[in-house]
């Protein structure tokens, strides 16, 4: 019954990926990415389902889901704003961008806005150091940030 949490196409996509590897377990990270894309975050149901699909102990799925920063084990806002605060970006004012966003959205770092539209987190180097300060919103990179640019980016989100 918990299979129902994924659309049929998503399940097929997961199975296709599983079959690309000599060992099913190797598909765990790509499959968790799909699960998270479908469900928004990795709920216990999601993880159980993935464990069954790949035939691995649920504790192992849990361990992997908690090890990697990109996997979210709780519900996040519709837009996950991830600001890089590692040194090269910090030299270019990343901390001020975090403060600006935190103020503008009235949300603490690590928190989600009351309307669940935005979550704000700081992350480590995104390989955009030459165009810092940099951030990602869901899958997209935004670079050379300034407060004005942030205003425009947020205003254009659907």
């Amino acid at each position: 019954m918990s299979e129902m949490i994924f659309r049929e196409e998503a399940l097929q996509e997961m199975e296709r990926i599983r079959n690309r590897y000599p060992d099913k377990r190797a598909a765990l990270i790509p499959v968790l990415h799909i699960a998270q894309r479908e469900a928004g975050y990795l709920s216990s149901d999601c993880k159980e389902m993935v464990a069954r699909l790949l035939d691995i102990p649920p504790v192992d799925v849990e361990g992997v889901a908690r090890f990697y920063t990109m996997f979210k084990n709780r519900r996040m806002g519709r837009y996950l704003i991830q600001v890089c605060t590692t040194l090269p970006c910090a030299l270019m004012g990343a901390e001020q961008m975090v403060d600006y966003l935190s103020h503008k959205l009235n949300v603490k770092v690590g928190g989600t806005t009351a309307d669940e539209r935005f979550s704000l987190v700081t992350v480590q180097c995104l390989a955009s150091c030459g165009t810092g300060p940099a951030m990602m919103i869901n899958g997209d990179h935004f670079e050379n940030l300034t407060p004005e640019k942030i205003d425009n980016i947020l205003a254009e989100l659907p």
Partner: protein
Amino acid sequence: MQILLANLDVPGQQEIETYINGGGYRGLRKALAEFTPDQLIEEVKKSGLRGRGGAGFPTGLKWSFVPKESSKPTYLCANADEGEPGTFKDRVIIEKDPHLLIEGIIIASYALKVKQAYIYIRGEMIRGAEILHQAVNQAGEKGFLGRDILGSGWDLDVLVHPGAGAYICGEETALLESLEGKRGQPRVKPPFPALVGLYNSPTVINNVETLANLPAIVNSGAAWFAGIGTKKSTGTKLFCLSGHINRPGVVELPMGIPLRELIYEHGGGIRNGRELKAVIPGGSSTPVLKADEIDVNMDFESLAAAGTMLGSGGVIVIDGTTCMVWALANLAGFYAHESCGQCTPCREGVPWIRDILTRLEAGRGRADDLEILLDVAGNISGNTLCPLGDAAAMPVESFVTKFFDEFKGHIDGQCCPFKAQPLSRVASG
């Protein structure tokens, strides 16, 4: 001298037709037609090519460690986990000239008789992964991948595999664990991956930039490549300029270029006419150089002689307005966040270092803090399973010793004299 970035700005370069029109996949044809796998390994040895992922290990030599006869398949993993702070060169190749990497992977796979190669790409590079997927499909349609490549009787499949946000997965054995669907915790070496790697089979792990050099080496010859750069650091290098520099970005220059020239000519000098204070020459894990130490050449040997490393080629430029305690606290926060937690000195020591530095920066330093910092760093160095521990410790030693007065000033004055950027947070989920 442009080997890797020559076609970067050609419109439509991501498309295989454009890549072929610019001479692409000629290296692969030549490799298959003119070299046996063993001859190709010899050619790469002769070129002097060394790994661009950080350690500078000779590529041909690494390949030669793979057993010639094995009952198990050999795997190749392209390391596209690019996560070393200050490094953003592999992403440029992946996003702008993906077939250069794919062709490099196919050539390496031929030399190593690999039938299954993986590109382990960091999870955040979602766009990059899509571009690589497309490139792999296009290469398959042209017969450069798949069954009986160009009539050679040899088959190769390439699979793009995403990570999920963990710097440690760039370390080659953590990468293998991650690729097997586990937490990215480095393995004990030996055995080395060339003998026991992915699924306990012989495995070669090479950086994206390393692999991207192969088409040119095959096309123009090992002797040509060896003539570029210095005697022991051959070829060009992608340097990533970041921080307080007028023209940040990726530049390709022969190995051995003077650091001063790199910063002042190619990077346009320091922003806002400020004075230079320090340079981290090879990504955040390499010891810092003071402004009066930049008359050094950017190659493996010269930087080692200067007490630092070429690393990944990430040049982080720091101007005179920057507080070095703040900068080091930031880096310590990075390593504390990224420690995989497997060994005690790294798991306990690095957060301890971060906490001391955060306190120092906040004006609450204690008399013995610097001694403790050096002591903790010293206890990490050489006592951990993987080099992340050393990478965290080395900047501590170099920052504290080279900018000792500044660190001591924070304690004596019980404040940060810079106060420009309060250290409100160094890392969070």
